[in-house]
Each structure stands twice: as C-alpha cells, then as structure tokens.
C-alpha cells in the first residue's frame, strides 16, 4: 500500500510520513475490527469450545444429576466407559452399519453422480440442460423428514407404488414391508440418499467442467478423437481435483452418518441394520441418560474421523498432487 503511494507523485514530506503511518494500523481501526470479530469468537468459545471440556466425561464415572459442574468434580474411572462400550453386544453391529452404509454409499454415489454429470455435460441444448439440473436438484432442498416420509409412503405395503408395481409385474407374490425388514435398510438408505443428492452433486462437477480450456476439445476433435475419448482424456482429468476433494470428504466422513436421514427411516423393526453410531449416541445419551458412555463413543468417533481426514488428505496428495490442505 505504501509502495503504491510513492509512485503517485505525492510530495516528499508526505512520503516520509507514509512510511511510518501504515493504513489501518491505528488503534481506532483495530478496535472497530475487534467489535466485528469478537461476537463470533464468544459464540464459538461458548457453544463449541466449552462443550469440548465435556469430553472429560468419557474418562469419568459421571452422574447426570451432578450437572455441568459434575464434569470436573466426578471421579476418574480407568477407561471403564470404553470397556463397557466394547463389551456391549450392540457395538460391533453399529460400527458395521455405520461403515457399511457410508462405504457402499460413496462407492456407488460418487461414480454414479460423476457419470450423470458427464452425460449431462454432453447435452447440447443449453435450456434442456439447465432444466434437467433444476429438476434433479429439487430433492436436495427438501428436508429428510419430507423426502424420507415420501419414501416411507412409496415403499408402504398398503398403497405404495413400489409394491404395486412389483406385484403387477409379477416379481413378488405379496407386498413387502420394506422398512420393516432389516435386509433392505442399507439399500434404502443408500438409494434415497443418491436420489436426493445426485443433481446437487452434479452441479459441482459441471462447474469444474466449465473451467476446462475449450481449445483442448477443439484440438482433440481435429485430431479425430471421438466423443467418448474426449470425455475420458480431457473432461475426466480436468475434474479430477474436484473428485479427489469429494473423495477426501467421503473418507473423512466415513464414521459420520447422516443422522437426519437415518433417524427418519429408522424404526424398531429395522434396528439391527439401521442403528448407526450417531443414532446410538442420541438414543442412549439423551434417551436413556447414559451421558458418559455416549460421550466416550462420540470421542472415539471424532478421533478416528480426524485420523481418516489426515490420512486421506496425505494419500490424495501423494497420488494426485491435490489435497484439501
């Protein structure tokens, strides 16, 4: 800033002053900036940092009656909370459901969304293209209560279209209670999520595709590259960094289920395959007041999630030279 001023033909006396007085470094400006910044810092400290001290509960024999102060006054209990979790028969199925839904969901979701975006990008008519986009991302804006509720209705054995069609086509003999049978839950969770997010996910890819140098396509076309070849050798490498970022997010979120989705679709009949870490923390923590063990599970989850994030980022940097940080 001061450098720019010297070139502007300002009298010499002024230049000398400019060197010592730097724009914005005065006390009043700094105070104004602080009034803008501090409310957020206070909110972060109160609602984000102070609850972190609650993680101490994971290592203590905590009694909910003792309140917030009890976090600090209760006795250490030698990792007893963690032992209780590992001994719990619900623990491993819950980890399996969490990882299964997320892993399969990403393995199917990322390629399918990518293929959809590649095909959509090949649509020549701009109006039709934007119409397809507008329609397919509508579900992203509906809440999981609504979207999940719609699918509960559609999958209903009594008057739901899925059972109706399957019966009409003769594929099944009697209506299936889809959400009441554990073997269907993973499929329903993965399928509904894909349907809800495919259009929105494609927007990110399409934006990345728009940033690819158009002359590459022209040159390839002159060299006789087919449309498929152009897609594979120009479009796909061009959006690889975007894909990698989404893969990193998917890996780091491997233990993080979409609570809002799972909780809507979950019921006592499909619990064996629908109970995931997040719903378990809610149901035992707030439902049964097992604060200490619910916090201990949450803590374990965060630690593994952080390790996954760092690991995935490292791997991505090594493989494709692009990462999150």
């Amino acid at each position, binding site marked *: 800033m001061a450098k720019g001023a010297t070139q502007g033909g300002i009298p010499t006396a002024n230049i000398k002053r400019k060197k010592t007085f730097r724009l914005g470094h005065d006390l009043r400006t700094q105070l104004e900036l602080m009034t803008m910044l501090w409310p957020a810092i206070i909110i972060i400290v109160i609602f984000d940092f102070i609850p972190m001290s*609650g993680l101490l509960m994971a290592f203590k024999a905590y009694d909910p009656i003792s309140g917030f102060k009890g976090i600090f006054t209760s006795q250490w209990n030698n990792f007893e909370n963690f032992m209780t979790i590992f001994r719990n028969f619900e623990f491993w199925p819950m980890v399996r459901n969490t990882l299964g839904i997320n892993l399969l969901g990403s393995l199917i979701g990322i390629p399918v969304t990518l293929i959809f975006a590649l095909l959509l990008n090949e649509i020549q008519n701009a109006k039709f293209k934007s119409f397809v986009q507008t329609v397919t991302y509508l579900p992203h804006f509906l809440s999981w209560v609504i979207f999940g509720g719609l699918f509960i209705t559609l999958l209903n054995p009594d008057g739901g279209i899925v059972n109706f069609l399957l019966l009409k086509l003769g594929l099944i003999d009697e209506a299936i209670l889809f959400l009441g049978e554990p073997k269907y839950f993973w499929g329903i969770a993965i399928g509904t999520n894909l349907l809800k997010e495919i259009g929105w996910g494609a927007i990110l890819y399409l934006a990345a595709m728009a940033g690819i140098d158009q002359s590459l396509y022209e040159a390839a076309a002159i060299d006789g590259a087919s449309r498929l070849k152009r897609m594979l050798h120009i479009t796909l490498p061009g959006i690889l960094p975007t894909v990698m970022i989404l893969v990193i997010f998917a890996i780091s979120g491997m233990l993080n289920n979409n609570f809002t989705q799972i909780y809507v679709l979950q019921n006592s009949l499909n619990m064996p395959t629908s109970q995931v870490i997040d719903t378990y923390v809610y149901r035992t923590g707030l439902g049964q007041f097992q604060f200490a063990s619910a916090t201990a599970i949450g803590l374990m989850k965060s630690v593994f999630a952080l390790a996954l994030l760092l690991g995935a980022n490292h791997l991505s940097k090594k493989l494709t030279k692009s990462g999150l940080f």
Partner: protein
Amino acid sequence: MVGGRSWRERTFNVTNVVIMIAIMIVTIYPFWFSVVNSLNTGDNLVRGPIFAWPREFTWASWATVMSDPGMLKAAWISGSRTVIVTVISILYTAMFTYAFSRSYLKGKKWYVAIGFTSMYFSGGLIPSFMLLNWLGLYDTYWVYIIPALFGGFWNVIIFNANFKAIPEALFESAKMDGANEYTMFFRIVIPLSKPVLAALSVFTAVGVWNDYGATLYFTQSADLQTLQYLILKLIQSSNAVEQMANVAGANNAAVEALYSKAQGAGIVTARTLQLAAMVISSIPMVIMYPFAQKFFIKGVLLGSIKE
C-alpha cells in the same frame, strides 16, 4: 460441435436425452405422487392407489392442515426462526469475514486457529446438551436463535473467496477519505456482494427451515415444536400404528389433535393429512430453490474457482 452429425453421434444424443428424462422422472416423481395423493379424497384412496392424477379431487386435507392450530403454531416457530437466523447470521458472518479479511488486522493467526479448530472439533451432542441446559437455554425459543447467530467458518471461507474480488483500491481511497470500518462494510462490501449474500441466505434458510435436530435434542414443550418435527411425529405415529411397534409419537398432543380430525370423515384420512402436511411444508423451499441455482453459480462457485 466440430464434425458432422454421424449416425453414432445421433444415437448417443437420443439415448442421452432419454436417460436424462428417466432420471428426472425418478427424482421428481415421489414429490408428485404425494401432491396428487394429498389432493384426492381419502376414502377413494382405499379402493386403490393413484399415480398420475387425483381421481376424486378435494382440497379438504390441505384445508384441514392449514387451519390446524398445532400446524400453524409449528409453522410460525419454523418461519420466525428461519427469518431471524438467516438475516442476522448472514449479515453478521459477512461482517466477520470482512474484518477477518483485512490485511491490516492484527492477531489474524489467532482467529485462523480458533476458526479451524471450530471447523474440525466439537464436544459432540451430549456435552452441548448439558451446556445448553446449564445456560438455561434448554426448552426455550432462544435455543433456536443464539447458537446459530454466527454462520460458522465454512461460510467465512466462501465469503472470503468472494470478497477477494473487490479491488483493494476502493477500500484504500475510502479509508483516506476517513471512512471507518463499518462504513466500508456497509457501503462497499454489501453492495458489491449481493450474489454471494443471496446464495448463502438461501442455503442458510433452507438449512434452518429443514432442521429438526434442535427441536429433537434441545426442547420438549409442545409449543416449541417446529414444522419438520411435527411432521416427523406424524410419520412416526402412523408408522407405529401400521407396524404395531412401540408408539413413537402418539403421546404428542398436536399430532393427536390433527389425527382426530381424520376419524370418521371419509374425505380426509390420516394418510392424506400426512401427505398434505409434507407437501405444504415444502412449498417455501420449492419456491425458493430455483433462485439458488442462479446465485450458487454466480456467488459461490465463481468465487471459489477464481482463487
């Protein structure tokens, strides 16, 4: 495109369009299904499902939902909460980002450290519940507002990428003319950042309107129920009846009041009521979302790509 339209090219184009139409039908149909079913008379639905168009058209279920005091109360809670949080958090987060992005801000590394910590770490559900309880926010309307007043560092990153596009010379000359930081924010940043402000407002509003977690975790009184939470209870209680499972939400007064209107009357049934409630509660989002595409591309993506 370059080159003539070969036979293969045309086949590809036609197949592609067909695939797109199929995907559109699959994504939009569930919504359409519930619209037509909620506009059909309930007793007629019992005779067989309808898929494309109402067989016996009626507004009765919609009218019942829209005149139900429990629903109206919940809509008021959801709506007021959405407006308050969106307006304050977007304006404040933009202001925070402005201050944060100033090159002459002292102690910036501390703000960065606090911000990144808040992005990747949290105490989790139970400690947050205990804190809100301890602060006396549990089961009050404030639990919807106060923790949400700052939009979080993900939004700061998006604002920051956009603010970089504003020429630094504008700020310098305003500063020379004696403008203070607030003047610069309101007179320079706000008018030049309308697309990103609009985009993030839409996202924030959608997120708040669609949220039911805060109600589920941090409230218990009936008069703090949001629309999404009330519909969740509608779905869960009708499920529970159907599946003979444990009664999930049948002890919810507002749900019971609404369902009691469905008994006896043949035009309106529990099922059409549930669908009508779902459709009506998503109308605000359906109206708002086409704007999101425009602003999303202009405000969010361009900013982040320029970087």
